[in-house]
């Protein structure tokens, strides 16, 4: 039963993780106004085109957007049906726990014993 739960969960997992990033949320917001090329999406974002391409790939893999290459231009558009699955109170709870568990990972890494990269004064 746990295995089937994971199978049905995995696509929602990807969507939530895709939306956990503010740059990707900005891309989704822009695409809500209509399709756009990767170049157009990159314009307002403070990062390299290569970084934007990576974000677009994550969003496409999650099912939130679709892309199509026409010649040398890749056009992206929102997949509205996907967004409906993310909404709602449970979606918010889940998103909160995705962030909390990410924060837990950071806390565990920062407080790891015997970490060579930490300042000497932290050695117990």
């Amino acid at each position, binding site marked *: 039963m746990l295995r089937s*739960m*994971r199978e049905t*969960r995995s696509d*929602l*997992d990807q969507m939530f993780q895709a*939306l956990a990033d*503010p740059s990707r*949320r900005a891309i*989704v*917001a822009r*695409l*809500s*106004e*209509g399709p756009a090329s990767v170049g157009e999406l990159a314009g307002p974002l403070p990062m390299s085109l290569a970084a934007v391409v990576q974000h677009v790939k994550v969003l496409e893999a999650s099912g939130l957007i679709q892309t199509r290459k026409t010649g040398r231009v890749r056009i992206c558009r*929102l997949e*509205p049906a996907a*967004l*409906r699955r*993310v*909404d*709602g*109170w*449970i*979606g*918010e*709870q*889940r*998103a*909160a*726990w*995705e*962030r*909390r*568990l*990410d*924060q*837990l*990972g*950071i*806390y*565990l*890494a920062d*407080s*790891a014993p015997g970490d060579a990269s930490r300042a000497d004064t932290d050695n117990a």
Partner: protein
Amino acid sequence: MGKRTVVHGSFSVDRYYPASPERVFAAFGTAEARAQWMHTWKGQHLAATHHTLDFWPGGIESFECVGPSGHRYRYVGRFYDIVAPDRLVYAYEMYQEDVRISVSLASVQLTRDRGGTQLVYTEQGVFLDGLDGPATREAGVADELAALEQVAFLRS
């Protein structure tokens, strides 16, 4: 008195951490540790006030905080099963402005795996009386996206 409604929902999320189950479990066990990672909502760190934590079976955790839009929340949880470092089972109520808005059951399962820990967090809850309507809900990712989805639908 408005219409009484209940919405059920559940979800499960998991992570692998390169840390022992003992260390991961300890991150749940004290107020100081929890404050380092748990007090986040809508991408913001929340300042919890009146925080009490009795981390034993039957013990209560409670705190208050103010959400990004100014709503006042109170969390009251009871621990049911605490088996270090394997699992934690608790239930909690959430209040918004002193009105109960949800009751949930949560579990944390930790499994030793390749020198680290596999964590599974599972939650199931009931959300009461449609108090997730536009007037009372926090604006956040879900609301932004609901608005976006409507726009996208209209344009498609």
